[in-house]
């Protein structure tokens, strides 16, 4: 669902300083269209192998010795409100074309827009999550242009007074790309109606929040991480092309640098380019759009948007924990950055992890189980953590049962697999399969006695000096106990018995 567009590739120097070998700076504005829908599925796309990622990164690294890429990102977040932005028409993603329309979204003569209050709430939440300054009084404007999919001849947007400005987003880069902490500025967040898509009015007029970043990113990876962090903040569900975005930007950096090196810099113009996944290239989509005069003026059909401190504070108090706060919290728990990024960067994994550690003290153990066996299973089966049958409660029970010695670690791994595949409870499985570890020395002794009695020949050999047979006896005892004998006790008693003078 992600559409990566490059807009506003500027050829003029933007920043006053330059890197050692470069006199020019290019600003690449990347516009991201993302869609949030309830029916979405988790990303099952395999990321390109680390080898190609690394190779690409190296190629870009080489270019960046001579050039500094300056990247800003414009993101359109489509809200999952059940109604459209400026009318009360039901909005269902994927519904039949033109099946949910009313005079308002058709732009019929006499129809007026009415703002959906949920859009304002979402905008305030996002503004707060992105550390922005909120405008307690903002307004809507009309952006005017003719286009077949724009029934009114203008788009309702916010021009000079957006609802939120001057924010930032904190990002931890992945360790495989060198890691490190970055802060990227957010220029503004504003509300607008989505311009209709083609003539399919049913999907048009959907509420959008547009997030414009400062041109603070320098590489494809930084841009992709910015986008990924944004996804975590707004919980966009099915945007899965961060790697495509990263590749597209790196391609664009290389392309522009190449043109510049060949003295064809005048071919670098302000335009919209489209990333073609098949050929792994960007191509021209629209040119000269920067020249348009949109004749913005205040939208007379909508009153100003007035926010009270009270309203804003209410929303601030109800905000969920943000990903950056989560990462710092996990870091303080003593987890490594590798663990932190894995656990915190997927909101579902983080929720699972937090629920698991609510009942147990060994946080590191819980992290290991999730990042080890559970992650491996999810990867093999291509499932998300919400799709496996294991619940956090059962994982903490399982860890508890191993720690208390009720079951062995080996049995724990077996049970885990069953819990992930079929569900059920740890307690139930242990009882059902009679898996409780035998820790009673008398009971273990009885089994050992039985095994020794059944193997007089091997006993004789052992006592004759072939002490390696201890392993054979231990195996037999474990087999006889159906794997439940406590290994420590077993060995201790076995040695005593084998070495006993009869």
């Amino acid at each position, binding site marked *: 669902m992600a559409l990566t567009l490059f807009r506003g590739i500027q050829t003029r120097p933007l920043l006053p300083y330059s890197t050692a070998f470069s006199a020019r700076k290019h600003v690449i504005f990347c516009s991201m269209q993302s869609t949030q829908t309830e029916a979405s599925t988790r990303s099952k796309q395999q990321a390109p192998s680390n080898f190609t990622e690394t190779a690409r990164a190296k190629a870009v690294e080489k270019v960046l010795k001579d050039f500094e890429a300056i990247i800003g990102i414009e993101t359109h977040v489509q809200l999952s409100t059940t109604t459209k932005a400026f009318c009360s028409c039901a909005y269902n993603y994927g519904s039949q074309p033109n099946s949910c329309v009313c005079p308002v979204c058709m732009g019929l*003569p*006499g*129809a007026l827009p009415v703002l959906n209050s949920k859009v304002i709430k979402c905008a305030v939440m996002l503004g707060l999550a992105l550390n922005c300054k909120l405008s307690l009084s903002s307004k809507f404007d009309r952006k005017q242009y003719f286009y077949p999919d724009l*029934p009114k001849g*203008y788009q309702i947007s916010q021009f000079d007074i957006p609802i939120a400005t001057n924010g930032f987003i904190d990002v931890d880069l992945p360790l495989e790309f060198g890691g490190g902490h970055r802060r990227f500025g957010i220029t503004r967040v504003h509300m607008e109606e989505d311009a209709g898509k083609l003539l399919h009015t049913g999907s048009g007029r959907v509420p959008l929040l547009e997030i414009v970043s400062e041109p603070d990113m320098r590489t494809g990876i930084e841009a992709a991480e910015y986008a990924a962090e944004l996804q975590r903040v707004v919980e966009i569900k099915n945007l899965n092309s961060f790697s495509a975005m990263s590749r597209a930007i790196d391609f664009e950096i290389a392309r522009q640098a190449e043109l510049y090196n060949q003295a064809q810099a005048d071919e670098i113009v302000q335009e919209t380019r489209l990333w073609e996944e098949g050929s792994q290239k960007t191509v021209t989509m629209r040119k000269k759009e920067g020249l348009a005069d949109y*004749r913005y*003026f205040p939208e007379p059909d909508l*009153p100003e948007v007035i926010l009270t401190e009270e309203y804003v504070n209410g929303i601030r108090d109800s905000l969920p924990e943000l990903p950056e706060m989560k990462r710092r919290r996990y870091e303080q728990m003593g987890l490594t950055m590798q663990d932190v990024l894995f656990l915190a960067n997927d909101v579902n994994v983080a929720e699972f992890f937090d629920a698991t550690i609510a009942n147990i003290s060994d946080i590191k153990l819980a992290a290991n189980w999730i990042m080890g066996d559970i992650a491996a299973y999810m990867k093999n089966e291509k499932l998300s953590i919400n799709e496996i049958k294991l619940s956090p409660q059962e994982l903490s029970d399982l860890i508890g049962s191993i720690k208390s010695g009720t079951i062995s670690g080996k049995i724990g791994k077996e049970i885990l697999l069953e819990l992930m595949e079929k569900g059920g409870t740890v307690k139930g499985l242990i009882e059902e399969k009679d898996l409780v570890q035998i820790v009673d020395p008398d009971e273990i002794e009885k089994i050992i006695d039985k095994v020794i009695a059944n193997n007089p020949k091997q006993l004789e050999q052992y006592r004759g000096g072939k002490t390696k047979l201890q392993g054979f006896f231990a195996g037999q005892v474990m087999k006889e106990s159906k794997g439940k004998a406590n290994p420590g006790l077993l060995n201790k008693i076995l040695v005593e018995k084998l070495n006993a003078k009869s």
Partner: protein
Amino acid sequence: MLSSVQNPRVLLLHCRRSKPFHHHHHHHHSKSIHAASLAHPISASIPTSQIQTIQKSILSREKTTRQFAEEFLNRLRLTEPHVKSFLHVSETVLNEADEIDRKIDRNEDIGPLAGVLVAVKDNICTADMPSTAGSKLLENYRPPYDATAVKKLKESGAIIVGKTNLDEFGMGSTTEGSAYHVTANPWNLEYVPGGSSGGSAAAVSARQCVVSLGSDTGGSVRQPASFCGVVGLKPTYGRVSRYGLVAYASSLDVIGCIGTSVADAGILLQSICGHDNLDATSSKREVSDFTSQFISKDYFESQPLKGLRVGVISETLGDGVDQEVVSSIRGAISHLEELGCTVTEVSLPSFSLGLPAYFVLASSESSSNLSRYDGIRYGNQTVSDELSAVYGGSRANGFGPEVKRRILMGTYALSAGYYDAYYKRAQQVRTVVQKSFKAALDVHDILISPAAPSAAYKIGEKKNDPLAMYAGDIMTVNVNMAGLPALVLPCGFVKDGSASLPVGFQMIGSAFDEEKLLKVGHIFEQTLQDMVVAMYHPPWNPGLLFLTSMADPLVTVVFAIVKAA
């Protein structure tokens, strides 16, 4: 209790009135239609609420709804070929009237406007009738929905009699800007009815309907009311939902009411106003009961308006205003003084700034509002392979010259590099205008001015002089800029050659205080004495049939003559 109005103009009318009424009327009637010359106004009675009369008659079964409806339809059929108020006349009026009669038989609730024939300006959407806004671009366009005001009318039992003519998209002051035909002033068919709600005012004036809806962006209800000698009410911005009103200038547009009495205008407003979820600019303010203001004249005290502070806007009675108009206003002022008002002059220095600022703002908004008419969805599309040629061609062929002029002005005013000099500056002027009105209304209960600098002029007289036409809006645009309510009611006549044409005066009130305007207006017209009230009825107008009776033999004769003509 009251003496006559001191206006010499009105006194003159008073003298003329001595001729026998019926006879006189009879003779001039057929003549005037051919010659389009004005006969002498004829006295009737003090304006009564036609709505209340109808309601009383049908509930007491004195007359059926169908009888009332037939009277109006007959008159409409007779007068329409001359006046041309309508772009569309409903074919279901009698059926709807019968339905109301059946409801009365079944003792069901019929609503406060039951049986009232309401004409609706054609830029207000109606689901079962065309809604062209007077433009070729919307020829044959039928909206799939009713405007909120229309929906409320229907819920109140009103019968929509048809859609009235207007200047295309409401842009004009004469109704000559209609893409379909020119409407005539019922007082003299050679004269314009005003505009842009010329069809709605003419229809009420000619008694083709009981009341009508218009829209007022810069005076489009008030100026035609003045030209046609009827009552026009422009409510406060936000008082009536604009949902379903084809937008001209959204921050100024308001749906207004036209009737033959203040009471009818008030009753009509009562049924269409109030907050609407479909219009974010509609006010949530509580609506008071306007009709409680309409007490009978018999209960008036000797000075029923004692203590009311009236400010006469001095800038509106100076240069450029017809002296006869000024005399009429002075007559009205004297009458208000007799009613107990304290009248003083008040200066609004920003008054003259309002007109240019209005045209910048209204044109800017209209350039945006009208961009949806791109030939893709409505109207005749110009065929071309190239998209911009489809847009350009369809708009070039579809819009009339005045609309194009305003789109061009507005587009210019909003363009990069000009925005600050025009649009922004005009908004600043608007704030100044709002403040000066607020200050004046802090020390006065109502403000008074003419409704227009002149009475109606001849058809074609200003058609090719847009600036002269724009200048005619000077009395009304400031009120829209400030968003205030205003009531226009007849106060005299102006002579133009052999023609004698009505003029109205404008009362401006504080925001959302329509109640006060209606109260003052009602007392004003109830105390005029019968001699001036004549002006409420165009001389040749068979509208008087309504006030007498269909059974009156003499009237029937008149009817027959008109028919023959």
